[in-house]
């Protein structure tokens, strides 16, 4: 089978437009707290979720909006949830990090790594109750150092669970470079557990679709779990209003107030050596610059990549985009209506 790029792009574009509405209402202050947006992860979500079947389950992390939309959740319900309304998906009780739909066997958690055990349980139920179905566990590479996720990898192998561990790797654990706190290579690590492990460019939706398709076939046939490492970027950083991005985008506004205290710290005679102090200062400046540059590269935007392949049929592309835009506009109006 070959992927249907038009269908995949439609899901990705719809997710992007929907989350742009979320971003706008967040900026208006209609969402009070954090908002972890899925910009940049759409190809991973689409390449996987579009192949799910009835009875398949999803264990989601704090960035569950794109997979849920693609799984068929009514977008108005999601938007109303983010607005904290009683007619939202979870009655306004959960918010964007705690989205649940029993109908879609989909559960989220804001605790890093917890989608591992959650996926294992869904997969166990699949094995007993719904042979041929499977579970997906979505998490970031930061979560791969969390004990419970590693434990569930072992469990999945020991029990030959129909589970796909999907690691969305953007190389940053909030402000920490993941490589600086991670030993070894993730694919090798997964293989060490006895997992079937595959690495894929998570900004290429067709590549994700193919890798995920093979893993799913394997899981449905009783071949056990797979670890899928998919590289991606987060175009808006860890969450909306992410400090490192703000520092990179507007260094004068964001960094100037920090300079006085930083210089005072750097000139204290007690503490680290002058080389250590200089290294810290350089690191602070470098991370603010690199995080923004690395994550916002146009060529790593999965939508830009997919669109390039479809642009030759401009009329069809524009018709698709117009249709999706209209839908999302209607969703926004419906959700904001009293």
């Amino acid at each position: 089978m070959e992927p249907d790029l038009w269908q995949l792009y439609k899901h990705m574009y719809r997710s992007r437009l929907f989350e742009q509405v979320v971003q706008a209402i967040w900026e208006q202050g209609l969402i009070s707290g954090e908002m972890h947006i899925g910009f940049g992860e759409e190809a991973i979500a689409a390449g996987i979720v579009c192949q799910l079947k009835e009875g398949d389950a999803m264990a989601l992390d704090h960035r569950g909006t794109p997979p849920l939309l693609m799984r068929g959740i009514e977008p108005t319900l999601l938007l109303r949830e983010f607005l904290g309304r009683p007619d939202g998906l979870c009655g306004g009780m959960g918010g964007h990090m705690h989205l649940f739909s029993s109908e879609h066997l989909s559960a989220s958690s804001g605790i890093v790594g917890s989608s591992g055990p959650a996926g294992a349980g869904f997969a166990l139920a699949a094995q007993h109750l719904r042979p041929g179905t499977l579970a997906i566990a979505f998490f970031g590479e930061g979560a791969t150092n969390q004990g419970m996720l590693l434990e569930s990898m072992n469990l999945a192998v020991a029990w030959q669970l129909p589970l796909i561990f999907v690691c969305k790797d953007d190389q940053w654990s909030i402000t920490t470079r993941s490589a600086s706190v991670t030993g070894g290579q993730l694919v090798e690590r997964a293989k060490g557990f006895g997992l079937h492990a595959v690495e894929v460019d998570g900004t290429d939706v067709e590549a994700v679709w193919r890798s995920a398709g093979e893993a799913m076939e394997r899981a449905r046939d009783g071949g056990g779990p797979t670890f899928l490492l998919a590289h991606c970027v987060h175009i808006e950083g860890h969450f909306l209003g992410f400090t490192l991005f703000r520092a990179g985008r507007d260094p004068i506004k964001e960094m100037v107030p920090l300079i006085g205290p930083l210089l005072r710290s750097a000139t204290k005679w007690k503490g680290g050596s002058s080389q250590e102090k200089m290294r810290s200062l350089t690191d602070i400046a470098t991370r603010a610059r690199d995080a923004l540059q690395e994550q916002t590269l146009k060529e790593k935007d999965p939508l830009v990549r997919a669109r390039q392949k479809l642009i030759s049929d401009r009329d069809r592309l524009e018709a698709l985009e117009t249709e999706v835009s209209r839908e999302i506009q209607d969703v926004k109006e419906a959700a904001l209506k009293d």
Partner: protein
Amino acid sequence: MRTMSFDEAIEEVLALAMADDPRIVIFGEDVQMYRLNLYTQFGERRIRETPISESAFLGAAITAAMAGLRPVVEVTLVDFLGVAMDALLNQASKLETFSSGKWKAPFVLRTTCGGGLGDGGQHQQSLWGWLSHIPGLTVVVPSTPGDAGGLMLSALKHDGPVIYMEHKLLSDFWVENLGYLGRKTVDFDLPLEGMRGAVLETWEPIPFGRAVSKRSGKDLTIISIGVGVHRSLEAAGILEEKGIDTCVIDLRTVSPLDTEAVCEAVSNTSRLLVVDEDYQGFGLSGELAAVVLEAGIDANYGRVCTEKTIPYSQELEAQTLPNKERIVENAVKLMDR
């Protein structure tokens, strides 16, 4: 006297202590970018970033302390301690007893707690009652910059495990980095009196288990901790207009608990209202009732706590966390009984 923010007070005490004691090391999630000034002054060896592996690095803090270091270990939110509870429940808390006092683990677990920033029920819990339930742990919850610095100084000098909890609403850093995030379009009910305030010219340690009276009154005693203290003081102002003279006590530490101050304050008014942002059942509010009963004090009792999982919706969140309206309403009821 000087004036500074809650965050500045903690940072200043840590910087002074670290400058004098090379055994103090800080490690935890994102600490280099979250503690920029300390990172600059002390460098990457003493301000060390961790993977998201709480059970590993919290467990390691204990034995590092047993072997001579004085770690200050940071877990971003107290809610995340769930994945690392063995380190506290079965290791840190047991060492002193199991070794009949011969071996201790002097470390500080620095973490944030509390709600009011719209982050939902997995990122805004208080949990100080849950932690204090375990014998062998010291649990402190400062409510002002002065107390934040003084209690941190005591924590750094203490010879056992101290859980040092910072309410997010008191911290400019967390309010900005979990709430405003560069926006001017959101409003949070911030306890300004606790975010910035007077501190001593030279820091003095504040002993654990020593409550402080924030306001005297003869009709009613409110006992609280953390941001609840500020909500209680606001409520006391409203109660004054209703002719109810309210005393407000800030416990400052949950464990050890200043039972003497509790009993004395309740004896004076014969009415106790506990304002506790932690969960209502099986926690601090019930413990305070037990303390008063055991002392044979005859008093009317009421409580304003968080009764259930904190909802995401900002409106429901505000109703769920103790607020001044609920405090006033319950205080008036106590007067009528």
